């Protein structure tokens, strides 16, 4: 009887520990390298059409914002908003995951290292695309673009939870 109680107690105390070691909670700041300074986009042209004087324009090299390589293949969990990419009337299966929505007019859009392309294991049933959620999954930090993948942060087989304020 006593050994049973002991085992029960042990599993109870261990279980949150075991569960939490599954996905490590990170913040959006962790996705940016510490030494990197984001550049305001006004300083970098995108379509060289900004001048009216008909000169031959050249396209500038636009560097993608750097990613933190050590996050590659880590099981991570972070909160944010979904920008639906693949969806139907009642669910979302793929989305761009960002720290905020709707503010985009006053400030530039988030740099590439503040966007995660998420593909869900199971489509998430939702009526409200703009509700904040937790996304948990295996992070893939891809440096450069290949035939099969684009550069940046990706998560596949991810799961979501509603974020309680």
């Amino acid at each position, binding site marked *: 009887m006593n050994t049973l109680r002991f085992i029960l107690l042990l599993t109870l105390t261990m279980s949150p520990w075991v569960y939490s070691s599954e996905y490590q909670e990170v913040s959006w700041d962790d996705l940016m390298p510490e030494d990197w300074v984001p550049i305001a*986009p006004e300083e970098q042209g*995108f*379509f060289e*059409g*900004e001048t*009216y004087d008909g000169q031959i324009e050249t*396209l500038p090299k*636009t560097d*993608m914002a750097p990613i933190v390589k050590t996050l590659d293949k880590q099981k991570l969990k972070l909160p944010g908003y979904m*920008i*639906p*990419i*693949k*969806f*139907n*009337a*009642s669910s979302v299966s793929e*989305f*761009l995951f960002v720290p905020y929505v709707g503010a*985009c007019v006053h400030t*530039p*859009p*988030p740099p*590439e290292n503040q*966007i995660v*392309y998420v593909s869900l294991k199971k489509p998430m049933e939702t009526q409200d*695309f*703009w509700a904040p959620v937790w996304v948990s999954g295996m992070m893939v930090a891809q440096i450069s*673009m290949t035939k099969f993948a*684009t*550069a*940046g942060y990706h998560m596949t087989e991810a799961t979501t939870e509603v974020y309680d304020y």
Partner: protein
Amino acid sequence: MNFLLLLKLTFKSILNRRFTSCLTLLSICISVFLLLGVDTVRKEAKHSFTNTISGTDLLVGARSGSVQLLLYSVFRIGNATNNIGWDSYEKISSHPSVAWSIPISLGDSHKGFRVMGTTQAYFEHYRFADDQALEFKIGKPFSGVYDTVIGAEVAENLGYQLGDELMLAHGVYDTDFARHDDKPFVVTGILERTGTPVDRTIHVSLQGIEALHIDWKTGTRSREKVSAKQALDLDLQPKQITAFMLGLNSKMEIFRVQRAINNYKREPMLAVLPGLALGELWQLIGVAEKALFIIAVFVLLNSFVGLLTVILTSLNERRREIAILRSLGCRPNQIFILLASESLLFAIVGCFLGVFLFLVAIVLSQPVLQGYGLHIPLSSFGFEQLVLIAIVIGVSFLIGSIPGYRAYKQSLADGMSIKL
């Protein structure tokens, strides 16, 4: 045993009041039909809208509002405020971040169907529903200037086949005096049904649109007419388009490209993410469709109030009958069941009729609805709808408890001193 007896008595009692019973039944039947109809249409409408476009990263048009852009470019509802220049389109679509682009040009119509000028890229890259591509029922994309590919609805409705000729009209409404009747178009392809506004569209090449308007530069047909054949020799390079769709190489660049387009200094343009724009559209419509549903619920409640009134009124007339039953040994709780089961019976039969009416309506209205891009199959009556019906029946039992309880109390109080 006694329960069956009570049901038999209730049933005979309702039959005896045939006329009012039928009216009450009709009222419930109609409200259930309405409830199911509104609920299904709103769900299917959302489904149909969301299925219209898939895989496009950005929609771009002249600067207006995101919902407006979505509506005219994808749903062919409403109109653009103005066009965008071809050079802006070229500059943006040739950027290394862009994988593909589809330019479109709107403004003409044919017998109520919208004409859309576009390129081969449309047939290659346009996707809808779950990444489904456009398929040809017969024929192929346009190659000549006056070739046209029509949607399934257009072909069915107007009975067009390969090789048929069409006259297109200037503007959204097709009338004699606004027709480009000197330049007929030939059907070279008919698309398979998609369940989207594509079915209601007549697709032509951008050159075709230019040819149509070559002698309309002043806003009306010029005195020097240019024939169809003459137009072929002229420069048919489009100078303007209404909107374009973009597919990017990397989804991560969506915001950057969107931002750049929105800030493009040479021309005021608007780039939207279809997903977000649909979300906004649904926010707008959402209010209306929720309101419709609430109204339908109130209509149902109204029917229940009617039912309650009918039963309560009959209660007064039935006091004598209840007293007789009591004298025969009927218990007060059996009196309760007698009255409560009446509303339950009405509700069950009413629901049954309402569902039947609903299914019949679906079958009959399918051709009409498809014209609006709404696809409502019989299978849309499923588990959720059954739950709705179960709730209706449950509520009716609760409502029936009111007269039931009153009869119960009365039968105890009356005893045998029945007030006639």
